[in-house]
C-alpha cells in the first residue's frame, strides 16, 4: 500500500470534519449535562456500576447486542431486525476496517479524523495482492449489506405493511433531512469508491460499478465531485443528528450502562430521563402496541409522541398524553430501547399533582381501623396462616372472595380475612394518580395491619394490589402471593382435588400481573387442570389491556369501550367457551361487553372442586 495523495488532504473532507466535530462536541456537552443532573446518590451508584466486573460485561454485551446487532428486534420482526442491524453493524464494521487499514499501513495519519473514513481516496493498492483483495472484499461486503438494509428502509417508508408495521411514526422536518442524507450516504460511497476502483483497485461491488458507469467514471474531473457529494451527505447527517431521532445512536451507548446501574426515573427530562428521551429511535413500535390505538384520534398519544413533546418542552401535550395513558406497559415491554414509558408519565403526573393539588389528603381516620388480631399482645408468627386481602375492587365482585375462600377451605388452609369490614386501599391508584406521599400513608397503615396479624403469607387476589405489595411494601417476614401462584402451588402439592370440565378457556393476562410482575405460567398451569386452554391472538407480554385500568386519569367511559371490545375480539379469536382473568377490574370490564361468560380464576377452580 502506498499513499496516492501525498498531501493526505483534500478540501472535500471539510463537510465531514465539520459534522463529525460538531456531533462529538454536542455529545460530550450532553454527557456532562446528564451526569450533572443526576443526584449525588444516583451518580455514585452509576459510577460504582461502571467498575463492577459483572455490570461491565453486561454493558458490553448489551451495547453490542442492542445497539449494533438489534437482537431484540430480530426476535420480534426479522425483516426489521435485518434492516437495522445491517445498517448499524455494517456501518460500524466499515469504520472499524477503515481504522484497521490505517493502523496497519499508515499509522502516522491516524490522528486525522477523516483519514480512515476516506481511506480509499488517499491510498493506492491493487486488488491483485492478498492484502488488497482481502480488505477490498471486506469493505464491499459490508457495503452490500448496508445497501440491502437501506433498500428495505426505503420500502418501509413507503409501504410499511410489507415489513409488518401497521403504522410508522410521522417524521419531523429534521428527521426527514437526517433520513434522506442517511439514505444517500452509502449509494454515494459506492459511486465514490467506484471511481477509485478504476485507479486503485476494488472488489465485487466497486469494480462492476466502475465498468457499468465507465463513460462517467473514466473522467478524472468527476472524481472529486463524487467524493465531495459523499462527504456532504456524511456532514449533513452528522450536523442534523442531534436534532433528529438518530440521536438515539450515541444516546443508547449511555442509556445501556445507566439502565444496568438500575437508576430510577426521577424527573421527566433530567438525568436518566433525558438520556432515555434521546434514546428513543422513533421506530413507532409503541404506536401499534398501544391499546388506545383502536381509535384513530388516540394514535398521537403513543409513547413516541410523548417523548417528542417532552423533548420539545410542549407541556400541554405532554400532560395530556401522560394523563391519558392506561399504564398497561405494553409499549414499554415491546420497546427496543426499553423506554420506561410508565415511569416517565408517572414522573410527570407526580410533578403536576404536587404543583396543582390544593386539597391536602387526610388519612388520619385509617389509624382507627381495627387490626385483625388483637394488637395488645404480640402475635407469634405463624408459618401456615394465610392472611387474605381481597382489595377494594373485589368488594364489587364478591364472587372472587367467595371462590378464594371456598378453594382455601377445600385445601384445608387456615386463613383470615384482612378486609372483611371494608378495606384500606393498597395505594396503587393514588400512586398512579401522582400522589406518591399520600400512597405512602396507606402503605404504612396496611403494613401495620399485616404485620400485626402474625401471618407469614399474604394472599392477594387483585393484580393491581399485588404489584404494589411486591414493589413498595417491603414486608419483613411476610411472603406476598398472588392467588394464581398460590393455588397452582396447592395443586402441585396435591392439596386441591380438581376435575377437568373440558371447557375451552382463554386466559387474559392482566397488565399488572403479566407485564407488571412477570406471572404468566402459574395461572395457565392451574387452568389446564380444570379445562382446555386455547390461545388468544396476542397474549403474555403482548396481551391487550381490558380498558378499565385505573392507570388512565382522563380516558372517558365512551373511549374505553372500543378498547375493551378490541381486547375481547383478541381473546375470543379461537372461540373459547369462557374468558378467564385474574384481576377484579378486568372481570368487571370484560363482563360488560363479552359475548361469552367471563370468570375469575378462583371461580373456575372453585366450580371444579371434586
Amino acid at each position: 500500500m502506498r499513499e496516492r495523495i501525498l498531501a493526505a488532504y483534500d478540501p472535500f473532507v471539510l463537510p465531514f470534519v465539520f459534522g463529525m466535530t460538531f456531533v462529538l462536541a454536542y455529545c460530550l456537552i450532553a454527557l456532562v449535562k446528564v451526569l450533572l443532573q443526576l443526584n449525588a446518590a444516583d451518580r455514585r451508584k452509576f459510577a460504582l456500576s461502571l467498575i463492577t466486573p459483572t455490570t461491565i460485561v453486561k454493558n458490553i454485551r448489551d451495547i453490542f447486542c442492542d445497539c449494533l446487532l438489534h437482537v431484540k428486534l430480530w426476535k420480534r420482526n426479522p425483516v426489521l431486525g435485518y434492516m437495522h442491524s445491517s445498517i448499524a453493524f455494517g456501518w460500524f464494521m466499515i469504520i472499524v476496517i477503515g481504522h484497521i487499514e490505517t493502523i496497519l499501513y499508515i499509522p502516522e495519519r491516524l490522528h486525522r479524523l477523516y483519514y480512515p473514513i476516506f481511506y480509499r481516496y488517499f491510498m493506492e493498492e491493487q486488488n491483485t495482492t492478498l492484502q488488497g483483495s482481502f480488505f477490498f472484499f471486506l469493505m464491499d461486503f459490508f457495503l452490500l449489506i448496508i445497501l440491502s438494509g437501506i433498500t428495505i428502509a426505503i420500502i418501509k417508508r413507503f409501504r410499511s405493511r410489507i415489513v409488518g408495521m401497521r403504522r410508522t411514526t410521522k417524521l419531523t422536518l429534521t428527521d426527514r433531512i437526517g433520513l434522506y442524507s442517511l439514505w444517500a450516504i452509502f449509494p454515494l460511497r459506492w459511486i465514490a469508491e467506484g471511481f477509485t476502483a478504476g485507479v486503485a483497485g476494488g472488489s465485487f461491488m466497486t469494480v462492476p460499478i466502475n465498468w457499468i458507469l465507465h463513460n462517467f467514471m473514466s473522467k478524472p474531473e468527476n472524481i472529486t465531485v463524487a467524493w465531495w457529494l459523499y462527504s456532504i451527505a456524511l456532514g449533513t447527517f452528522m450536523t442534523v443528528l442531534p436534532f433528529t431521532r438518530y440521536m438515539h445512536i450515541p444516546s443508547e451507548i449511555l442509556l445501556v450502562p445507566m439502565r444496568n446501574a438500575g437508576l430510577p426515573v426521577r424527573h421527566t427530562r433530567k438525568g436518566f430521563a433525558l438520556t432515555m428521551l434521546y434514546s428513543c429511535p422513533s421506530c413507532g413500535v409503541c404506536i401499534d402496541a398501544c391499546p388506545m390505538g383502536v381509535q384513530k384520534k388516540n394514535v398521537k398519544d403513543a409513547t413516541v409522541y410523548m417523548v417528542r413533546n417532552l423533548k420539545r418542552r410542549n407541556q400541554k401535550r405532554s400532560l395530556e398524553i401522560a394523563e391519558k395513558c392506561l399504564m398497561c406497559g405494553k409499549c414499554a415491554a415491546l420497546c427496543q430501547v426499553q423506554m420506561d414509558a410508565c415511569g416517565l408519565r408517572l414522573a410527570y403526573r407526580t410533578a403536576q399533582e404536587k404543583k396543582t393539588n390544593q386539597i391536602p389528603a387526610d388519612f388520619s381516620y385509617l389509624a382507627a381501623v381495627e387490626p385483625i388480631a388483637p394488637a395488645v399482645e404480640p402475635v407469634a408468627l405463624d408459618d401456615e396462616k394465610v392472611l387474605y386481602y381481597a382489595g377494594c375492587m373485589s368488594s364489587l365482585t364478591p364472587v372472587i372472595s367467595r371462590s378464594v375462600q371456598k378453594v382455601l377451605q377445600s385445601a384445608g388452609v387456615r386463613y383470615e380475612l384482612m378486609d372483611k369490614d371494608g378495606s384500606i386501599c393498597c395505594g396503587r391508584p393514588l400512586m398512579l394518580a401522582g400522589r406518591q406521599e399520600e400512597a405512602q400513608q396507606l402503605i404504612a397503615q396496611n403494613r401495620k395491619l399485616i404485620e400485626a396479624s402474625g401471618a407469614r403469607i399474604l394472599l392477594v387476589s387483585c393484580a393491581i394490589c399485588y404489584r404494589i405489595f411486591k414493589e413498595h411494601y417491603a414486608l419483613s417476614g411476610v411472603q406476598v402471593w398472588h392467588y394464581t401462584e398460590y393455588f397452582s402451588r396447592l395443586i402441585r402439592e396435591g392439596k386441591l382435588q380438581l376435575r377437568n370440565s373440558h371447557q375451552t378457556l382463554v386466559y387474559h393476562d392482566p397488565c399488572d400481573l403479566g407485564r407488571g410482575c412477570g406471572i404468566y405460567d402459574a395461572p395457565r398451569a392451574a387452568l389446564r387442570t380444570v379445562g382446555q386452554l386455547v390461545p388468544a391472538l396476542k397474549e403474555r407480554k403482548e396481551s391487550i389491556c381490558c380498558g378499565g385500568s385505573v392507570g388512565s386519569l382522563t380516558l372517558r367511559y365512551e373511549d374505553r369501550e372500543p378498547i375493551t371490545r378490541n381486547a375481547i375480539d383478541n381473546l375470543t379469536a379461537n372461540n373459547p367457551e369462557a374468558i378467564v382473568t385474574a384481576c377484579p377490574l378486568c372481570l368487571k370490564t370484560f363482563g360488560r361487553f363479552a359475548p361469552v361468560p367471563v370468570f375469575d380464576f378462583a371461580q373456575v377452580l372453585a366450580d371444579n372442586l371434586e
Partner: protein
Amino acid sequence: MIDFGYGLTPSSTLKIENVANPAFEELRQREPDVAKCIACGSCTASCSAGVFTEMSLRRVILSLQRGREKETLPMLQHCMLCGKCLLVCPRGINTRHLILSIGKVYKMEEDR
C-alpha cells in the same frame, strides 16, 4: 285588557343553574362529566373511604353545585382514589378525574 289589579306573577323558583358559580363552571370545563350526575348515590354506597368517614361523592357534587365548598372539601381529603365509584357509576362519570380536578379548581382554607 281590563286591569283587575292583580295578575300572574313570574315563577319564583330559584334556578341553581342561573346562579353565578364560576368555580363550578371551571370544574365543568375540566371535567364535563360532572354535569351528568343524577345523584343516585352508587358512588357513596360503594366508597372505600365512606366505610370509615362521611365521604360521599354524591354530596360533594351537589354541594359544589350549590357553591357550598367549605363543608365539602374536607370530605375529599379522605378519598383514596381507589376507583370503585368509577366502576359503579351508571352514567359512566370519570369520578377519579373529577376528584382530581376538584383539587385543582378549589382550594382548602388553611385554618380548617
